[in-house]
């Protein structure tokens, strides 16, 4: 490996040792948490879901520089897809996962023409609008989605026909972890690929891209499709492991939340974004337990502080650690 490509990768991940070390810690921590917190597996599973969802959105915002305030539409779509499929009797988890991924990806692809148009501000409005429509549609189609009551009461078959989802949530955690690991590796490949480089090109200078012969719209369509599909998988995992799908999985709050998490993580830094999702999920849980009424206030303060304390997000902090150590 030449120094050049090492440095190129260092740019890519915002610090070679940083990202690889952080990724290692992330995975080791996830595995260790299974043994350390056997009574909190349901919560840990939710963290994994949040991390997957955050990573899917980071592909858009962090790497492509494309903002969206409606990404939960794909998350919710995946959740409902898995839930509805399971209720019709096709309750194999991997089948449901694949179905959710494909459906969300196709919907994302279909929506691209209206989303890639315009600039950041118009995109915020368009994605917000589309997500609201999806939400309202899900609300109205009670027969299919259960409306405001959500979709409870469905069974998920054992994973690979072998591992039955147990009451303690062990299999659910392991299943979510496996899907998370797959998503992480897949996205790592994507962001280090020629396509990933082109996405960062769009983020860094959209105007120059056509002048080097780049099909910008196609790149954005691919990014949206991949991102939507992965968001759908995250939703499916949540629905399958909690055996519930509901409107809030499609809601604006979830879309806004994931934008905060990606920003907090340091856009484009996969390990940073994962840790941010973890921190966000944990903080939300702690604060809402401590003060069911005012927890959002605490969350807001922490978020504001993070802007001043860690400008490059958690990913930036991780890199900073690396630089200090190597200096």
């Amino acid at each position, binding site marked *: 490996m030449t120094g050049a*490509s090492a*440095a190129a990768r260092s740019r890519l991940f915002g610090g070679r040792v940083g990202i690889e070390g952080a990724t290692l810690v992330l995975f080791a921590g996830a595995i260790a948490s299974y043994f350390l917190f056997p009574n909190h597996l349901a919560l840990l599973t939710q963290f994994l879901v949040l991390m997957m969802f955050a990573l899917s959105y980071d592909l858009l915002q962090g790497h492509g520089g494309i903002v969206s305030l409606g990404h939960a539409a794909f998350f919710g779509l995946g959740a409902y897809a898995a839930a509805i499929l399971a209720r019709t009797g096709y309750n194999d988890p991997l089948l449901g996962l694949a179905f959710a991924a494909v459906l969300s990806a196709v919907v994302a692809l279909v929506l691209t023409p209206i989303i890639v148009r315009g600039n950041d501000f118009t995109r915020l409005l368009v994605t917000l609008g589309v997500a609201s429509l999806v939400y309202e549609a899900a609300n109205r189609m009670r027969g299919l989605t259960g409306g405001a009551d959500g979709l409870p009461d469905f069974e998920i078959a054992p994973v690979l026909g072998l591992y039955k989802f147990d009451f303690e949530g062990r299999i659910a955690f392991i299943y979510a972890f496996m899907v998370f690991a797959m998503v992480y590796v897949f996205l790592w490949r994507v962001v280090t690929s*020629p396509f990933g480089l082109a996405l960062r090109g769009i983020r860094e200078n959209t*105007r*120059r891209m056509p002048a080097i012969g780049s099909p910008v719209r196609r790149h954005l369509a691919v990014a949206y499709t991949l991102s939507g599909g992965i968001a759908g998988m995250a939703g499916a995992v949540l629905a399958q492991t909690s055996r519930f799908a509901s409107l809030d999985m499609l809601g604006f709050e979830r879309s806004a939340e994931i934008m905060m998490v990606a920003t907090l993580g340091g856009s484009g830094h996969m390990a940073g974004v994962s840790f941010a999702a973890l921190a966000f999920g944990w903080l939300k849980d702690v604060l809402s337990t401590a003060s069911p009424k005012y927890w959002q206030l605490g969350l807001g303060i922490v978020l504001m502080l993070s802007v001043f304390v860690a400008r490059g997000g958690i990913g930036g902090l991780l890199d900073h650690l690396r630089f200090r150590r190597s200096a």
Partner: protein
Amino acid sequence: MTPALSTQGISVHFGAFRAVDNVNLNVRPGARHALIGPNGAGKTALVHALTGSLSPTAGTIQVFGEEVSSRAEKDRVRRGLARTFQINQLFRGLSVLDNVVLAIMERDRKTAAFWRSVANDKRAHEAAREHLAFVNLTQHADREVRHLPYGSQRLLEIAIALATRPRILVLDEPAAGVPSGESHAIFERIHALPQDLTLLFIEHDMGLVFRFSDRISVLVAGQILIEGAPSEISSDERVKEIYLGRRAGHAA
């Protein structure tokens, strides 16, 4: 001989304002063709129309005889028409090397691949390093562009355009904003480009224009005032009055 680049009646109007007005331009293959004219003459608007980043109000454009008027900017690049920008349009958060690698990969249509690794593409990296060596940026290859000195950024502008392997290169004030000592270095690199690469360039420094061009078009108020060899242009009274005279007056 088929011109490398040719336009018929190209106009760019912004409402009542005629930035470019009925321009017929022929650039022969291998030319060092300069486009000069006072500020606001419409030079950059013409370049935008040529390369497709702006839709002309009227007129047609051919690249080596092929009609490209209705082609998108990226498709003109793929037909060999590349450009640089008067104001740097670089990928500032990427390394210098990645800037060029990206252009190479787009040219080779490799960027659809999200399942391959950029780092493993040795050939693209070698080609990128050759382009960087040509513009003397080898030692900066791994630096982030935003930390690059301005003059080096101007050279990177050119390297990125070269990476698209153009047959015609349009240079919009390649030395804009660079101190005169360094602007010479930039033009020395342009001069070293292969003879079969057709160049159309905008430049304000008349010394550089007369030294490096073999053909000059003078654009005034959106129209071609005169086109000819440097000797014809330098002796033309209207040019002296409208353009050179005024510049000389400035300098005095």
